[in-house]
């Protein structure tokens, strides 16, 4: 009996170790692009040229890859920090665009979502359906109409051309709406009975309870605008207005190490924001999924 119990315990431990290996392996596999970027950013230019020789010479062979560089260096980071004002310019362009878009989205999206969630008005369903349809439309479909509209407003080749369409995006409205909808309507009734006004109900009840959804919309909105490529390419002719996502195409093939380092630094901001808002994001996604 004891032997059977011990065999069971050992088997369970082995199983857990196996599961751990599988999970760690999968984790490494998923993180592999980031790891490749990281280790690639530590290889110097000479090593990169050596790796890319087969491709550069005749294009018939593959790049040789090494995980650990033979001569690790932080030269590319140093160059980006101190010798690449172009990178810095685009970095702050991205920060500016993201900040404006997210502020606008929250400023516009939260009241809109609150209106859809807390009030009943004529045509509400139809209007919400239009919101959902607009959310589903890809950028390529709306690009021409946006272009013509921005051109008529003389906003082309300005940051407003990228910011304004994103500010009025319907996606955050949809996410936040789900958060507001998760709040029991009895709470609003009780508050009204206690004499609370609509603004007070929105600020004291709506916003705190839908914080998760708002943060989810914030994070998802940030990731979308931080990585946007099509909109700046279509609406921004002046390169000095471009966001950081368009920096990599400007790097030559012989500067692969710098490209890796730039990618890592581009990732840093997203990682920070994810670390800060991870709890709220998880809660928001869960609440949106469960209570929607």
């Amino acid at each position, binding site marked *: 009996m004891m032997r059977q119990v011990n065999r069971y315990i050992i088997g369970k431990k082995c199983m857990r170790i196996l599961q751990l290996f599988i999970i760690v392996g999968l984790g490494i596999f998923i993180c592999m692009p980031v790891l490749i970027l990281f280790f690639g950013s530590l290889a110097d230019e000479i090593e990169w040229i050596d790796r890319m020789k087969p491709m550069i010479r005749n294009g018939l062979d593959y790049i040789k890859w090494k995980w650990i560089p033979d001569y690790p260096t932080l030269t590319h980071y140093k160059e980006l*920090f*101190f*010798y*690449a*004002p*172009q*990178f*810095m*310019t*685009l*970095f*702050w362009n991205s*920060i500016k665009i993201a900040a404006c878009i997210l502020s606008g989205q929250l400023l516009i999206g939260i009241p809109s979502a609150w209106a859809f969630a807390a009030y009943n008005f004529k045509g509400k369903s139809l209007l919400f359906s239009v919101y959902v349809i607009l959310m589903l439309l890809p950028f390529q479909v709306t690009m021409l109409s946006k272009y013509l509209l921005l051109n008529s407003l003389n906003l082309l080749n300005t940051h407003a051309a990228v910011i304004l369409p994103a500010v009025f995006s319907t996606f955050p409205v949809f996410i936040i709406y789900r958060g507001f909808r998760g709040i029991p309507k009895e709470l609003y009734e009780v508050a009204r009975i206690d004499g609370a006004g609509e603004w007070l109900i929105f600020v004291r009840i709506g916003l705190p309870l839908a914080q998760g959804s708002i943060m989810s919309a914030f994070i998802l909105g940030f990731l979308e605008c931080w990585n946007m490529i099509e909109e700046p390419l279509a609406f921004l*002719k*002046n*390169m*000095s207005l*471009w966001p950081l996502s368009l*920096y990599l195409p*400007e790097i030559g093939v012989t500067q692969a190490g710098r490209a890796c380092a730039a990618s890592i630094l581009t990732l*840093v*901001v997203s990682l*920070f*924001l994810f*670390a*800060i808002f991870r*709890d709220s994001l998880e809660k928001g996604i869960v609440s949106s999924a469960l209570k929607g």
Partner: protein
Amino acid sequence: MTKSKRLTIISFGIFLGFMAVCTIIAKGIYTSGLPQVRAYEPKRTSLTHEITATGTIRQGTEYGIYVESGLRVASISVRMGDVFEEGVSLFQIDIDDLKDIIEEKELAFMKLNSQQKENLRDASRALKEQQAEVARAKEDYEKNREEADILIQRSKQALEIAKEELRIYEQYLASTQESVSGGDQHLSRQEKLIRLKQNVNACAQDLEDAGRLKDTNLLASDRLVEDAKNAGKSTYSSVIEINALELEYQQKQIEELKELLTAEGWVYAAVPGRLTSSRIAVGERTQDGASLLYALDNGERIVEAVFSWDQVKYLSIGDRFNMKVQLQNGSSIREDVTLNYMEVRTDGEVVGEIILEIEEIAIGQTAQLSCNKQTDVYETCINKAALYSNQYGNYYVYVAEEQDGILGTEWKVRTVFVTILDQNDRVAAIESAGITVESKIVMSSTKELKEGDTVRLLE
């Protein structure tokens, strides 16, 4: 808010702050590394070519002092540049050598004279023979003419007789024509008539032949007379004439040499002047041509200046130069002069000459010449400091152009190859399809430039 989240937010803030600091540093390093350039737009202007040259004053017309060639020089009293007066002894010929030469010349003269006398005798004898020959030829001529005349006379007489016989017989036939109406008698008469006519024709032919024969014979005789007259004439006359000339020349040479001997070999200046060239040396024999060259001391002056080929492109005969000459007494002369002559010497130098009428300027002094030549207006003129050339000798300039980049509008330089139409020491007129009047031509840079460099334009 948990402690780890607060730490993350603080880290994010530090990261953004670090990025802000790095932005300032990176921009500072970037801008401090940019070449600072000054650029200007090309101008539409004409070029001024300042042509300067240093000339040497030399004599105008030169004269020669001649002595017989082949004389040995004993001494020379003057040097190059010396000024001499009339009657001054210039150089001396070796007297002993001169005597020997005179003796040789006199001997040669005598030999030739004897030969000439012999020639004259021969010529006289030949003349007599020729005259006799001519007389004989003339006599033959006359004889031939007389014989021909006799022959012609006889032919004429024969012709007259034949004509008379024919006329008589024709009269006879006319008178007897009625009695003889036919038969053999009539036939014989007609035959005789024909025979007489043929006789007349034959006599006429003989007369004509006699005349032709006379002309032919007289022409041949006349030629013989002419040949006799010309025989021996040309041979003797030409030799005698040549010898006579040679004798005259030798006589003159001997007289000149004797004059030189009388002067104890000294050669004197006939007029005052300045020695400009000497072609004799002590101990050497004189050559053909002038032994000394001199210029009149108060004659015309010529400024001789060497010009470069670049300068020659803008020069032409008649150009006015400003000339400055520093005189020996410390004062200077400024004068506007005219370029009179230009020539390319065998060594490739281009020499210009200016004729002066200023007597104060001494031979051998230097003159500073300057002349400004204005060209036509060129559309695109730049400072030569902006002009570069590559290893193949092609000229190019850097043109700064605005380009939009990630850092905004920046100035980048572009290499534009140009053709130089004209240039002086400061400005060049260029031509290129890539340059307009609004192009920013880089004149100076703090660093060496290359195609595509980003630069900082200093206004």
